[in-house]
């Protein structure tokens, strides 16, 4: 390879994994966080429905 071109690309190719990692970590972590919150929200909503039913039943006794 032309040594000048090799000099140009010497800072481009080796940096690619770091750049990809930086962007991928942010995007994946955001998606994981959203998934965790939505899952927790659904679980809590299900608990809520069961508990409301139980409270109504107790109050009616």
């Amino acid at each position, binding site marked *: 390879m032309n040594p*000048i071109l090799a*000099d140009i690309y010497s*800072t481009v190719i080796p940096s690619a994994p770091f*750049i990809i990692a*930086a*962007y991928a970590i942010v995007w994946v972590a*955001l998606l994981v966080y*959203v998934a965790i919150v939505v899952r927790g*929200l659904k679980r809590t909503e299900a608990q809520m429905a069961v508990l409301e039913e139980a409270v109504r039943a107790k*109050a009616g006794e």
Partner: protein
Amino acid sequence: MSDKKVKVPEAGQWPDNLVVPAVLAGAVLTTAGFLMAFLMVGPVNGAALSSPELVGDVMVTNQQLLSQKIFYFHMPVAIVSFVALVFAAYYGIRFLMGRQQRFDTCSRVAMEIALLFVVFTMVTGDLWTRFEWGVWWTWEPRLTTYLILMLIVIAYFVLRNAVDDPERRAVFSGVISIIALVDVPICFMITRLIPSSVHPVVAREGGMAPDMVAAVMIIMAGMMLVAFGLYRLRFRQARLDERVQALKDQLEDY
């Protein structure tokens, strides 16, 4: 003296209607900014080449620092972390003023979002440092003050888990959120007080070309919208958790 009713934030209020549009708009804007940063904004010049070289139809005279592209996410997530900390401290102060538990919940959720974005800032910054300098860490002024900020935010959650009494826990948390806020301007201003080559004052010194500024602003707007959506979503879950706990207590009382 009038008994003025304090309006407290609640899940299901109008901002919740904006969660899905905000997250979607945030995803679109961050992706657009990302594509702009890589496809439209030229790389930053590094060391001069021994002789110019024609690459495609461009005369290249310097090494091309592709690693600088990390900056397009790094700076916006750092700013979002600062904004989240401002909100955490605001709600912390509101709690300390009126002792309304709801404000403590708001402060905790904002602090959680702040922690997420603080970690993003540290990770993206460290990846750049590792490539450019060959080290994972250096005791540079902004890195050091930002590390202190991250430790304060982590300490906030450690403390919350260590104190059982809700009132005391909320008071301590409110105070720590204010301490974290105090570190925000220090982090922001430190490069102005102690100049550093790693964190140049690009905005003031005109170190960014207009297309770079545009890409950063688009990603920052996107990240702000994503953070807002995450905050409201997490707040809704936290409020539901509190209501579940209240129902459990009510059942035990029967």
